[in-house]
């Protein structure tokens, strides 16, 4: 066990955990930030996507001792009231079916639009290909990303 000071959504949190603990489980079990989801644990589905200094990473294979003073942003920290452009676009397109993968999808989409504000269809597909939606809402997600990119 070791003590880590993590910067999550603009606040510093102290946790005492095994250094090999994935950030996913630190967020969920220790910080009660439950919006980041467990889907596969091996970086294959993207449900656990967070931002580390603004870049999309899979929190299930990001170990707590590798974070240092980097800024972690989770779905809870993306906006105050769900008013981030991407979240609003998701609501406008009424994307979700079961909804479980969507916080990871939104975090991947937000990171994509940070780097590339006007992606083409192909760029969206390539950037999002690591996020699985088992319900098959891919077309709506693409529409939502295009909606957000037009704002």
């Amino acid at each position, binding site marked *: 066990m070791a003590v880590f000071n993590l910067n999550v959504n603009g606040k510093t949190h102290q946790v005492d955990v*095994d250094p090999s603990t994935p950030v996913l489980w630190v967020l969920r079990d220790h910080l009660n930030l439950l919006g980041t989801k*467990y889907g596969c*644990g091996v970086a294959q589905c993207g449900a656990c996507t967070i931002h580390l200094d603004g870049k999309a990473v899979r929190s299930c294979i990001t170990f707590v001792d590798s974070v240092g003073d980097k800024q972690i942003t989770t779905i809870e920290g993306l906006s105050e009231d769900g008013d981030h452009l991407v979240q609003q676009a998701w609501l406008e397109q009424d994307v979700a079916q079961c909804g479980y993968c*969507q916080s990871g999808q939104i975090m991947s989409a937000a990171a994509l639009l940070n780097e590339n504000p006007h992606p083409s269809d192909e760029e969206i597909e390539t950037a999002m290909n690591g996020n699985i939606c088992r*319900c098959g809402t891919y077309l709506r997600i693409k529409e939502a990303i295009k909606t957000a990119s037009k704002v």
Partner: protein
Amino acid sequence: MTLVKTTYNRRSFLKSSLAAGGGLMIGFSWLASACSVNTPKELTIPDEWFEINAYLKIGENGVVTIFSPNPEIGQNVKTSMPMIVAEELDVDWKNVLVEQAPLDTVKYTRQLAGGSDSIRTTWSALRMAGATARTMLREAAAKAWNVSVEEVTSETGVLMHEGSGKKAGYGEFASVAAQVAVPEKVDLKELDDFSIVGTSRKNVDGMGIVTGKPLFGLDYKVDGMLYAMLIHPPAFGMKLKSFDPDEVKSMPGIKDVFTLKTFNDDYKRQWSDTISFNEQVVIIGNSTWEVWNAKLMLNVEWELSAESKISMAGWGNDYEVNVPAGLESTFGHIAKMKEMAKKPGEIVRRDGNPEEEFKNAARVIERTYTAPFLAHSPMEPMNFFADVKADSAVVVGPIQSPEYMGKSVAERLGLPLDKVEVQMTRMGGGFGRRLYGHFGVEAAVISQKMKAPVKLIYTREDEMTAGIYRPMYHAVYRAALDTDNNLTAFHVKMGGIPENALHANRFPAGALDNYLAESWETDSNISVGAMRAPGSNFNAAAEQSFLDELAEEMGVDPIQFRLDLLKRAQENPVGENNDYDASRYAGVLEMVREKSGWNQAAEGKSRGVAAYFCHRSYAAQVVDLVMENGEPKVEKVYNAIDCGIVVNPDAAVNMVEGSVVDGIGTAMYGELTFSEGQPDQNNFDGYRLIRYTEAPKKIDVHFVENNIHPTGLGEPPYPPVMAALANAMYKATGTRYYHQPFIKNSFD
């Protein structure tokens, strides 16, 4: 208005303090999900609620809370069911809050997510709940205004008396209405007067989902909750021999390690009690990662299990399931299927004299179709919460069959059924996997032993390798043609390991004078269960590919070929036991022919068509694609669907889009194989699910407009698209796709 008797489930209209309070809510996440998440900023929460019946309560300011009775798995019933109540209550949808109801078999009708049956089986009860409340509000106003109830009308949450010009919001009369006796008769709206049902309303959990609120089972937490994980045998045909708990008991955060028996040996299992490994090792600790680490460290020895029999309490009669010994492999399954297909099967339906017609045929066309085992793989792995006390228990989590889980938990804990409370969280998918609620029983047994609240979590690997799969299927289709290329007889022999898929009384049965359907099954120790459109998901893929090839052999258009058969089935059906309505079946084919411009060539694209009937609904699809590097690039999928009244059109379109993506993914990539009893895939690196680059570019959805009461939608568009895809791929490549997954297209 139509005056109807309130005979439908009158028990629902009795007062229920449980539902009014939203159940015995515990834990912060549940409260969060039940209230604040779905409250729009502009809505003022009432100071006081007045319970009208088990489905709704009204605040003094006119805001209404509607309880959605059924489990929400992504089919969007948490929005569409309350829409039906709100329609008959006659309120502004903007003033409606929605809460998930707990399990209550007395107050509600069939709280189950399965068979695409949520809306169909509750449609009348939901309408009645809204209409009854509206009548009670009118009666309350009539009494206060000293007029007859017939003279009191309503308009979107406002009660009115035309003669005196009196008006009042529902909120003003809610407290009085709550005391009014349940009326003997109520008015139901005419379907043409609907203003909520049939209009698109957004997902009531939408904001909660996009802001990451703890809506799901895995998110449910209470103070002092322990985390538990299981270790199951690595292969089917194996069982626990021994393990050494001491080496992990001292690991940080670990509370206990012991053997868990899910069901007692003398217990007669329900249909929903399917389980692969009844004895497992459980590790309990303070956090997920600590338990996971201990799970990886624990040394467990396994041994081969002997053949066994499991007692099942069936529908009406008890029966036994044989579980053979041995370590099964995919190559063995393939050999077994080939052997079984050569033997006579059980004749399920026989019309005319098919054997004679095959003997006399000028030509016989015979094709074999297969599909592998599949893992459901919902994005949220199995999990459940349990808090078991000496004389009561609460279980909370994602479950498609809460009523049956409640029974199994009560039986296992030795508690009366009414001492087990079941609460439903939103589910991160299910696809049938969450019909089998052994994980709730497991969580309850662990909590009982630990005397603490417990959350049981399956890892993805646990889930993918612990069974309850879609069975492996095999079908041989044969057609007899005369010298003029007329179809004179049709024969299907279908089987599965360990369960069959045959729907013998569906099209083309009823359209053919000489028809034979045979089935077979063969035992396996690999456990199986229902997966999205069970049986149909293979039937449609195989039969609709065969019909396409048959039409080509006969030199007729594949849509016209089906329509001609359906015309026969409609005008002069063969046999009396035909499941489908031939005119509605033809209707979706005609619609998709028109919408896709079938009779004009799609430039540069290869097209395929298929149609199917299941869950009382009809779906026809046309796929347009080009092939690149052996994989299809699907440009467009046209859908024509007849599921009766569409409650929430945009959400219904979403459901069809998802089914199409899922169907293409299943047919192209889905496959679980076995070596020496062990699944060869245990996560999404090996088990391939469809991704963005493989999904269709565009999906067009058209619904047949009619006033038929709603039928299924979550499943019917899923099966036929597999065949439409195969038929289009044939047009592009000249190769027929007989064997799923199509990326392999082999059965050797």
